[in-house]
């Protein structure tokens, strides 16, 4: 079952499935450039308080994404700490 990247909590990992249609094309391009492409593994390093952008690791780089972007990235959670 797919969910969004934004639903990940600290320590969770996932595999990117794709993007939903609401995500603007140029945002999609930028995410792909940063390594958030289908099939890639992503882990959530930090889920901050008050809805602040979350911290994700993809390959050997760390990025912060806010919900406006992360909520449109479709993922399959592979490791959950719930």
């Amino acid at each position, binding site marked *: 079952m797919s969910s969004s990247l934004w639903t990940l909590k600290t320590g969770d990992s996932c595999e990117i499935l794709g993007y939903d249609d609401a995500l603007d094309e140029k945002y999609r391009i*930028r995410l792909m450039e*940063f390594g958030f492409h289908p099939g890639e593994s992503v882990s959530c390093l*930090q889920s901050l308080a008050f809805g602040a952008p979350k911290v994700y690791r993809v390959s050997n780089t*760390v990025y*912060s*994404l806010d919900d*406006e972007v992360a909520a449109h990235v479709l993922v399959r959670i592979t490791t959950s700490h719930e």
Partner: protein
Amino acid sequence: MSKILLMGSPNSGKSLLFNRLTGLHHKVANFPGITVDVSVGRLQALPELELVDFPGTYSLQAISADEKVAVEYFERSLLDPEVSQVLCVIDATRLEKSLYFTLQVIRECARHGKRVMVLANMIDVLDAHKLSLDVDGLGAAVGALVLPVSARSGKGLDAVIAELKKASVREVGGSTKPQVTALDEQLRITAHQLAQRFGAKGDVLIRNQTRLDGIFLHSLTGGIAFFLIMYLLFQSIFTWAAPFMDAVEYALGALAELVVPLVGNQTARDFTADAVFGGLGAFLVFVPQIFVLTFVIGLMEDSGYMARAALICHKPLRLFGLTGKSFIPMLSGVACAIPAIYAARAIDSPRKRLLTYMAIPLMPCSARLPVYSLLIAAFIPAGTALGGLVGWQGLAMFAIYFFGMFCGLLVTALVSRTSKDHYNDLPFVLELPPYRIPSLLPLLRNCWNRSKHFVTKAGKIIFAVTVGVWGLGYFPNFGADLGTSWLGYLGHLIEPLFAPLGLDWRYGVAILSSFLAREVFVGTLGTIFGIEAADEQTAPLVEQIQNSDLALGSGLALLVFFAIALQCISTLAILAKESGSASLAVKMFMGYFLFAYVAALAVFQLTSLFTG
């Protein structure tokens, strides 16, 4: 002269490498219309070669106006016969991030017959953690020479120079030819595969970074660290820069005392004293503040903390159409709008940068303080409430400071909701670079360049306007009486404009002269009321204003007017330069004047209703 382009994605250490190779001696130029610098310098070891530092970008596929200009500049450069080769810097510790862009650069260079050399930077970091990068294998795979270097320690740079010395253009690297016809999607897949195959194994670097992020992004410790660092930033602008600002003022004053008596003619003497030295003092005094703020912001950027600060502030500022990166320029604006506008360069989204420019002039800058102090002392009673806990004047000062900030956020919220400029916006996808110890020398060099930019670019406009306003106030009666000068005449002319606020021509003249700098309002009003050195001792002026039958509503209207109006020539000049748009500065001046006038009129009318 033969030119070499230096390319690389942000946070790859490109600028430090540029400084290493050119020995810090370079000039900085701007792309027309946008805030992107291009540094140009001769190689220290090979002065016949010029190195052009291309702005850091993640890809050659532009998704904003800024990026489009930068990418077009690169494409034009490839057609330039003087450009002999391209150096592409990659972060050896995070290969995949840099490789996609590098492959795009190699492809474009292959199409134009330009040689590419890939510099795998931060090799010292890999060495320190006993990690390695297969540079030969990577070079063979991408079809370009890959050299391991450290911009920080200088390791490997001799080999780079030796390669550059080989003047003949030849094929380098391994057997694999660059992918001349490869599509971006293919390059992305290739970058991923190459990073897996040749990149450093292990995640010790990420673990170190995550450990520190656990402190700096933690709800409690992160909040404390953020508060302390912002306090440090604020202190640096207000307190650390103050002695240097005083020194500039003192030095100019001492020089004026030496020079002015040597000028024979009275008018020329007045011009030298008031327009030349007064005009120079009006903008040179900001140089230390710009230098100090650039230094502190540079420390934050180079150490990696800036990205964390942006992350912490993003959510609340997003409500007002801003980004987390807007916070530091806006906080700096509480001290002075000029360094704050420079600080807005760090905002990568052109749209968010524009909105931040709009908010900055409404932050309650220190130049407003003397005006607020004078008006509050004149119109707000000195009494206290709640058993002495709350002073009315202190409360009024807090209210007017808060009012300015509120107006700034209100403007950005309204503009962001009513004007959609999607093309110039960028998503909040922020790279969190590893924590690093900043390199001092390049940082100081950057501070120097920024200060020089202010003096040479904005200084001319500020000085020209200063001379103009001085002329209006001096002629035709040669400085005998401000009231009968051309400025006084203008004050009378615009009196009907300020009459609905209950203000007469004297306040009109003071407002006109405060266009030079807001605090000039106090000195001008003092001159008109016949009080010597009113800007240093305001009590007699306060008494005069209180005795001049000026209504409470007019005093409050003036307070509101000064909280909003953008009557600061230095701010407007630097705004025009940094945004690349003089029309933006003019529109903002007129827009905020109108906003200030309407708000002041509303306050005057409302107060008049209650006070009769």
